[in-house]
């Protein structure tokens, strides 16, 4: 493997940046060189957002090319489809089972469309009900930690202490506990 690639996609304001920060810290901790690219400013006002993450023995460019991501984490199902060109055919996707329709149109519950389309292509898809879990924890902002929890299981990372450090470094102190809870809920959810 030249390098591993992960894209984290979603809607501005759903914790995409924090999720990729967590992943980057984790991968660095695993002894990888890491580069991660994100977009700030205009794109964050509820628009479509993507961050790209690369890890390996030595990584140069912070940008992924077409077909170079083995993992995608999507905080919303339509956004999962928007960035399909980055995925390799053996990719694994974690989708938050949540849908956000365009402003002004009728809200719809999660349709599972992206999961179905990806599965038709032979891609391994995990649908994670991160949004409801976050709401059950009384904080809709921790859905990203639920997704990262799911990822930790899929990525076969058994060292829970490392994740504890990662969460401590990423969030302000007062949000540590709730993000830890969210992380473990996500972790329990996935069976592989």
């Amino acid at each position: 493997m030249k390098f591993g690639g992960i894209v984290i996609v979603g809607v501005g304001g759903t914790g995409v940046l924090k999720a990729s920060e967590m992943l980057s810290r984790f991968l660095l901790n695993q002894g990888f060189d890491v580069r991660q690219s994100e977009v700030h400013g205009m794109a964050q006002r509820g628009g479509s957002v993507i961050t790209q993450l690369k890890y390996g023995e030595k990584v140069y460019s912070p940008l992924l090319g077409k077909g170079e991501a083995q993992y995608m984490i999507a905080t919303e199902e339509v956004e999962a489809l928007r960035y399909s060109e980055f995925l390799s055919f053996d990719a694994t996707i974690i989708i938050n089972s949540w849908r956000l329709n365009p402003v002004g149109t009728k809200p719809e519950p999660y349709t599972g469309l992206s999961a179905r389309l990806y599965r038709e292509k032979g891609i391994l898809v995990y649908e994670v009900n991160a949004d409801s879990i976050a709401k059950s924890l009384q904080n809709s902002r921790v859905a990203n930690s639920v997704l990262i929890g799911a990822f930790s299981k899929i990525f076969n990372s058994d060292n829970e202490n490392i994740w504890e450090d990662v969460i401590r470094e990423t969030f302000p102190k007062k949000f540590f506990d709730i993000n830890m809870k969210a992380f473990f809920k996500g972790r329990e959810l996935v069976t592989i």
Partner: protein
Amino acid sequence: MKEQKNNSCLMLGNEAIARGAYEGGVQVGSGYPGTPSSEILEYLSQFKEVHSRWCPNEKVALEVAAGVAIAGGRALATMKHVGLNVAADPLMTISYTGVRGGLVIVVADDPGMHSSQNEQDSRNYAKFAKIPFFEPADGEEARIFTKEGFIISEKFDTPIMIRSTTRVSHSRSVVFPQERIHFSPFPYQKDAEKYVMIPAFARKRRVALEKRLEVLRDWVDESDLNRIEMRDPHFGIITGGVLYNHVREVFPQASILKIGIGYPLPFEMISDFVRKVKNVVVVEELDPFWETEIKAAGIPVEGRNRIPGIGEITPDILKVAFGVPQPVPSIDDLNQYVFPRPPVLCAGCPHRGVFRILSELKITVTGDIGCYTLGVMPPTSSIDSCICMGASISNAEGFKLTHPELTVGAVIGDSTFIHSGIGPLLDAVYNQTNIIVFILDNRVTAMTGGQNHPGTGITLMGEKTSKLDIEELVKALGVKEVHHLSSFDISHFRSLLKEVVKKNSGPTVFILSEPCQLIRKKGNKNFYQVDPNLCRLCKKCLQLGCPAIRLDGERAQIIAEYCRACGVCSQICQFNAIKEEYQS
């Protein structure tokens, strides 16, 4: 510079620049927020040994920094590319005077215009001002180059520019932080012939400036900030900045001359490289800046004939440019199921209702730089021009001078007004231009993430300070008619504005105040709901474009979870169908 590498950590490029400045013993950091540069000073302000400040605009920021450097301290000024246009005036002359303490100016370009109104190539400014610029490729280089910048600045008596781009500033990579070096300011020394640029003295400095460039030209050929990596003798690339990383990845075998000092160029090193390696291509983003310089020195290279000059250069674009097959198959036929998701004003944004009224009363609106530029988008579609910081007011004057029959208004945010809207408003008063100015006062610099400014009463270091009273300022400029009201009180706004339009005797100023959602404390859990028995399906509220208002069949519906209870929609509804739900 040789450093011991131990504790590695992950840093955003902008954080690494701040770290480098801190380590380099900087005393003062100044700037104005602008994507992708904003986080530099935010990170720097976490070091209590450094005085960091937001200034009203980039010109002020650079002048403060220049003052520090002339007086003998070390200073950092930060801005985005278009901010350097504002600061260009002091830049051109601080190049003449030189510095005593180190002066580093960080400029962050935005190829691809992720969050900017143009994609100018700021490298041209370094040549224009005859000062050196360094171009880091990643976080670790950003740290080292910034730190080194202070030393080189002092050594050659010149300001140093660090040119970053979005992909350097907003990428995280591994950085090896070091301790802060101890530096105390040089003792103050008056030197009028060097620092007072009257023509007689400036003429002497003009000559000194050319001499300095000569000395720098010799130095760059020896500096280890530029380097040659010899690999394939038949394929060479001259590149710098983030593109170095793309090149390393796409062409692992290529020989590379990596430019760290982008001006003046190390021509001896380049000739040497071109002699040793056949087929040398200059890989650079935006203008063919290096290619032109290199060709002018009589060295044959390729460049723009292969690499596009518009937008961002990605590894994939490089592959296409050089005919490298893309080996990994990808899935690219799924985005047909996707709808566009452009950025929108937040639910409860104080700008929304204002735009609704402006479009309802058919005002011709000139716009400015900020979240409120989104007012150009449907459904309000209410902005007709947007050029640069502060231009809304002066553009409106021009509109009115050309078409007196139009009712012309300018929208400008509080931070933008302070940045460069005061002069234009004074112009409208002085020349009695009949326009209406809407100051959208949301008490923060919102677009860039919510920074403080002179109107918020809090400094970058988090200290309480004097708070600008915009209303008093506007009156002091001589505006006779000033209306100050809540941005959410749009019924009142509508009737006032109708009167103002009828009176037709501007300049008139409206100050519409209400905090941005980033900082607004709601204090309750109330939200608004549509009463299905009263709703007559007119869909007028949908024309607000609030993310919380949705269409359910034919009926409007408010998603309680997203509603920020600003109450604007309830004033738009003519049938009183939208009401506040009180929650305990």
